[in-house]
């Protein structure tokens, strides 16, 4: 949270999709941060301690894809909520950290913002870390 606004980190290597995702997050009333790969995302997570949710792509250049990144985040920053989007339609839920949400691309903006709102709301109960 930053000034009462949830902070969402967007990890996406395609610039155009990333811009769209940033607008989606801003339109939902959250603060948006962006990274173009997992390594940059981790640097940002290390620098800031106010990130509530990470919205990540799966296929990205760099040392980690979005699935590895999401596990890394779950291990290192357990309270951070996770939304994963991929062009792959079939992605086994078991490959993802528990409690994270998966959406296939192309996603609908409203579907993503609804999921964000739900995940961020569950934060209040402090019972989501499994």
């Amino acid at each position, binding site marked *: 949270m930053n000034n009462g606004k949830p902070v969402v980190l967007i990890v996406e290597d395609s610039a155009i999709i990333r811009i769209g995702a940033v607008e989606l997050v801003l339109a939902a009333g959250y603060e948006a941060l962006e990274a173009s790969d997992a390594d940059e995302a981790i640097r940002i997570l290390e620098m800031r301690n106010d990130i509530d949710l990470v919205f990540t792509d799966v296929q990205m250049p760099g040392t980690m894809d979005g699935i590895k990144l999401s596990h890394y985040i779950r291990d290192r920053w357990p309270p951070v909520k996770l939304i994963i989007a*991929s062009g792959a339609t079939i992605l086994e839920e078991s490959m993802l950290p528990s409690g994270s949400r998966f959406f296939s*691309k*192309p996603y609908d903006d409203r*579907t993503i913002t609804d999921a964000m709102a739900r995940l961020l709301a569950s934060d209040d109960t402090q019972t989501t870390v499994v």
Partner: protein
Amino acid sequence: MQQPPVVHFEAASTLAVVMSSHEPLLFLSDDLRIIAASASFCRAFEIDPASVTGKRLGELGSGEWAMPSLNVLLTATATGAARIDAYEIDLKRPLKNTRNLVVNARKLEDGDPDHIRLLLAITDVTEMRAESRLKDDLVREKAILLQEVQHRVANSLQIIASVLMQSARRVQSEEVRGHLQDARHRIMSIAALQKQLSTSGGGSVELRAYFTQLCQSLGASMIADPERLSIQINVDDSNVPADISVSLGLIVTELVINALKHAFPDERSGKIAIDYQSSGKDWTLSITDNGIGMPPGDDAPKAGLGTGIVEALVKNLQGEISLTTADPGTIVTIRHRETSGSGTKVSSAM
């Protein structure tokens, strides 16, 4: 060190049969000495035919046939304890490629227990194995490529949807925004088909799953209050080729968008039903709403892009479109009848 040669005499005909065998063949004594080797064996494994007779199997060539497992199996075959059926071994030779072999061994039964001989047939399956490996690799590669293409398609559609959404947010005109959002819905409609295709794999689409996903996507972006408006799907078990599915999906998209936009003004609640039934090659698609109905005569809105798209697609599908009043609401029905059959088929109309 050389033992005296085997004292038994073999029938000349037996030796001739072995020697002339097309399949590489060894005729062995029970202590695994070679009585005869086929010319094909010597040729295939590059062994001098003159050097063969009387040698132990393990002494052939540079000793590459001295394989412990083969030795054990042949000995067991000689004593009758085992039979070698299609046993696979790798023949490793210095400075040469390893060959994959399938060996079969039989004890020759001719009623003389003191005179045991073995027939060892060797098939070189190296090329066959390499071919099947190559085939497996190609199949795997094709699956990976296909997946890669699907990723790219999904990503490209995401880029298009993102650009349209960004434009829609920026424009001032409500009308232009509407058009941009409609364009995005059409993209999402094709994306839903793409998703179905990537899971089905056979080039045809399970229509019920496709329409369900399509309407979920439309509802997610267009229905603010799911309590007020809902979309129902009633589709039979049809599997429809991709090119026809994409047309059906776009028709459903246009008609559902149209109904959501115009049939339920002033927070009116209601539902839209999508029905698809097929019988043989005939099918009927209908989109029904229980909204305010179409305004009559001059009050009717002028046809937009959506109407044009629907009419073009219906024509393409060789269908007929009809519009009826449901009281309340509207039913749009699209029927396709195979004209090639004898006369006009009568089917269960809605």
